[in-house]
């Protein structure tokens, strides 16, 4: 199997951009290793729980905090839908009560890091990005430049933005333009 091609291959040219000596923001990319959606209906919690316990997680989690264990990250994105990254093929878990869907090629992650990363986010999303309102481990589903994204706070000033692959370039460019006043470093593609 070949390596999947990142939709941002053309964009991740390492270097420093924008404001002179400042290093407020670092942008990079991260491949989403695998992404599965499980979905169900009325008794979704009961049906989905075994899948999560098999991964060592206690439950479905909430709409605000991601669950992370090793390489596995779980986001509860809707009352009856969960996204899981970093798990093996879940197809076997499917049943009449539980729908499993491979979304491994739908998203790519843009990483945002640095002292000005929260300011940068405040420029592109209309949600309070202060540490008290959006701290490590928390996630948001919101829109950047009219495109639905999932933003996961992965550290004090560090975020993964899961963007749909076909919109990735346009969102990257918007982040790039917005980051210039802060002083922007682009990381080599991982």
């Amino acid at each position, binding site marked *: *199997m*070949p390596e*999947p*091609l*990142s*939709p941002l*291959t*053309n964009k991740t040219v390492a270097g420093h951009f*924008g*404001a*002179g000596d400042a290093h407020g923001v670092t942008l990079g990319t991260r491949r989403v290793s695998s992404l599965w*959606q499980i*979905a169900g*209906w009325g008794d979704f919690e009961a049906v989905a729980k075994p899948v999560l316990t098999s991964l060592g997680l206690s439950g479905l989690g909430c709409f605000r905090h991601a669950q992370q264990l090793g390489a596995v990250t779980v986001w509860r994105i809707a009352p*009856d*839908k969960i996204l899981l990254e970093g798990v093996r093929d879940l197809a076997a878990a*499917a049943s*009449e009560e539980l*729908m499993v*869907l*491979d*979304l*491994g*090629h*739908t*998203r790519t992650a843009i990483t945002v890091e640095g002292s000005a990363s929260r*300011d940068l986010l*405040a*420029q592109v*999303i*209309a*949600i*309070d*990005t*202060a540490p008290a*309102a959006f701290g490590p481990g928390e996630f948001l589903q919101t829109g950047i*430049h*009219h*495109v639905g994204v999932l933003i996961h706070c992965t550290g004090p000033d560090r975020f993964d933005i899961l963007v*749909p*692959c*076909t*919109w990735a*370039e*346009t*969102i990257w*460019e*918007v982040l790039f*333009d*917005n980051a*210039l*006043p802060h002083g922007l470093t682009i990381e080599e593609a991982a």
Partner: protein
Amino acid sequence: MKRLATGGRIDRSKPLTVSFDGKSLPALQGDTLSAAMLAGGVSLVARSFKYHRPRGVFSAGVEEPGAMVHLRDGGRHEPNARATVIEAFDGLVSSSQNAWPNLNFDVGAVNNWASPFLSAGFYYKTFIGPFKHSTKFWMMCETFIRRAAGMGRATHQTDPDTYEKRNAFFDVLVIGGGVAGLSATLSAGRMGAQVMLVEQDFDLGGAVLSDPVGSESESWVSVVRDELLAMENVRLLTRTTAIGAYDGDTYALVERVSDHLKAPQNHQVRQRYWLVHAKRVIMATGAIERPLVFGGNDKPGVMLAGAARSYLNRHAILAGQNVVVATNNNSAYEVAADLSQAGASVQLVDMRVSVADSTQAIARAAGATVVLGHGVLEAKGVKAVNRAIIAPVDVSGRAIGPAKTLKTDLIAISGGWAPAVHLWSQRFGKPVHDKASAGFVAPDNPDCPIQAAGTTAAAASLDEVLTQGFNQGVAAAQAAGFTGDAGEIPVTFDTGPFWQAGLSPAWATFNAKGKCQGKAFVDFQHDVKINDIDQAHLEGYVSVEHLKRYTTLGMATDQGKLANINALSRMAELRGLEIPEVGTTTFRPPFTPTSIGSIVGHEHGRHFRPTRLSPIHHWHVENGAKMTEAGAWMRPWYYPETGEDLRAAYVREAAHVRGHVGMVDVSTLGKIAVQGPDAAEFLNRMYVNGWKTLAVGRLRYGVMLREDGFVMDDGATARLGEHDYFMSTTTVNAAKVLALAEHLLQTAWKDLRVHVTTVTDQWAAIAVAGPKSRALLSAVSDADLSREALPSNHFTKASIGSVEVRIHRMSYSGELAYEVYTPSGFGRHVWETIHAAGKAHNLRPYGTESMGALRIEKGHVAGPELEGRTTMKDLGLEGFASSKKPFVGSVLRKRPVLEDPERPILVGLEIEGEKGAKPGSLLFPADGEAKGHGDGWVSSTTWSPALGCNIAMGLLKNGKSRKGETIRVINFVGGETLTAKVVSHHFFDPKGERQNA
């Protein structure tokens, strides 16, 4: 006018190079452009809108009606810049506007002499012209009017600067950095609330900045500022204007990040647009001084009293040597005192007969003369004031004794103060009249998220301003849930007579006949005189809105900040009503004119809208494809070979597909995973056709209607597994179909256990079409694609270039064709693998134009036919509809007009001759007059390489019975009439033998 040797809040060590109309001005750091103009002795700054009267600097703030200039040049050129709020910077270049040939000698000033004929509403009564059914006469006049109107000259050059948006969340937003705002910020901040304080000036202090340097109030400001700067929960933003208050407790601010510089530095933005969400707002926006109305009150040398004091104390500029201070209230006494102390000879003319001795003493002690019971009847002078005619007046401002003349070079006027309640009014409507202050204020309502403090709430003394601000800060923090201790109010101070205490209701002066002597302006910028209001009243334009619209009062760039209350007062007098009965207008955003760029931020040019790219996009670009927009997507339009234009390329590409094999990127199709035990029932309801019998491994074409029974979309759906379906939609309707499906499942169809999820991004899709497609794909994949193994409307899993793919047997071109679905990260790899293997099969990529040509040859409908007004019957799709089950739109599609047998239906057209028809042409019978809406229209056209002629699809009345008829195809706007034969729209291989090969 001169700069004093000492004083002012300016940095004398930092002279700046500033020019106006080529004249160098002695500007210092801390000056505004208007201060620099006054320091440089420039009194004539601009010409007025209508009469081109000379105008000077009238104010020291955002209410400035006259001193508007051209600022900067090239792409950074900005017209109508207010000299009173432009910070002087090194390299500032400005020039006058609305004057020709120059400011000093302006031909337009002839309007001033013609002004009686240009009275209110004159243009509604004239220029009608003698010609019936013609607008020519007016339009000829209009050309001249348009040239004369307008103010500054704008550029067509592109703005080189950048802008950004910033969202922010605060418990308390304090608007205005004067004493009220500072004390509110202090108390709310001390209680622990997150507070943002915004001030439009570059410095904090508000009215205190107009107090003499070294005053008690100044030291208060500096103490409070220091405490605020030390608070982590307080954010201070200067050079920031709160322009609007909107629903959801959202406030729009504009921060002028770089406007005080020649150009933005180091990648910084020019302006930043803040959207602040705040639980509570304290509106400490102060008050705007009202002018007095008398003849010639617009002349250079007439200035608001507060402005004269501001220029003196802030910029150390004495705006006149022989000063007349004219007032109807106490606030001007400090002005007279300060001007006097600075060395001017000052006569204070007060319309009131009786004024407290203590108040008079303020002016007298400084050496000013106080004349009570007098008003200024007229300001004299051509391009600058040189005399003031004053006379004793009664309580209504009417002269009751002989006039006398005072020599003067500055008339400083104060007609009281109007609280700046704009932001409250923008959101909550009309403010209420406060009799004590003769102004409009926000009504008292402790639950309102916007609370006024200080002079905005008509506070009468500085002490009251301070206390009120502090208390409002406490209340706001409490409302936001904070219970901390706000501590003590830092030192209060006694300020004596303040603001507009003792205001007289008289605000205009008239001669003994009750007329203003000379032209007496109410709206300075729009040249609305007091007698224009009188005339509007005579003609019945008496409501505030009619008055405003008939005279244009309040519609200028200051939006009536100076004019509104005086105009209302006049209308109230004329109608014999109290001011509240006349009413007021609602203030509209923005508070001050706001650059469009700041609100747009980064969403312009390429980023006006997001762009969506196929996973194979860059291959197309690298291989020379011409790209085209398809909704948000970019798609390859055609791949020109040397020297080819669009037509040559698409004809070649289409012929190549029929002759050999081609590949086209169809990744942009909408793709939706439909999962669940009730998925088949869901599809049954969504589509017109039946789905219960579709077996795993097969796919089916379906048609979807809108709720009103018109065709919405079409596409194929494959059954991947027991509960798994893979739906495809057209590129443009993908989002609409998904949203509709989600809506129905979450509302009316909760009984269905179905999930829909977009998988458009998951899959790249490549259509491989042409007689050699089977050979090619068989060679490049491991699948058995034989006719038996994979008949039409079946799919199979396969591997191409060691990538797991799905191959659908599905044809849009009418050729033997397949669609290869591959995970999108492998899209380019699979494309390139097929492309490389295709060399042996003479494979060529093709674009959307040839794809269109191929589908027209087949008579397949697409966007031009699915135009939202066509039914299944119209499009010949009726056969897909199941009669056994209801579906979305199944009832309403049968409404009588939609069943009318005469409706235009889809037909094919063979165009005679070499020239093809244009889509959008109309269809008419071969003979007769071609008028009206015709018998139909042409939807899609192409040159058909397969048929060797021009063909078209169209909708034609009674189309079914007209096969073989020759009709006219008329393109009126292209000046072309063609003839065509009506045929079946299944032009090519109607039996589908090629695709079923």
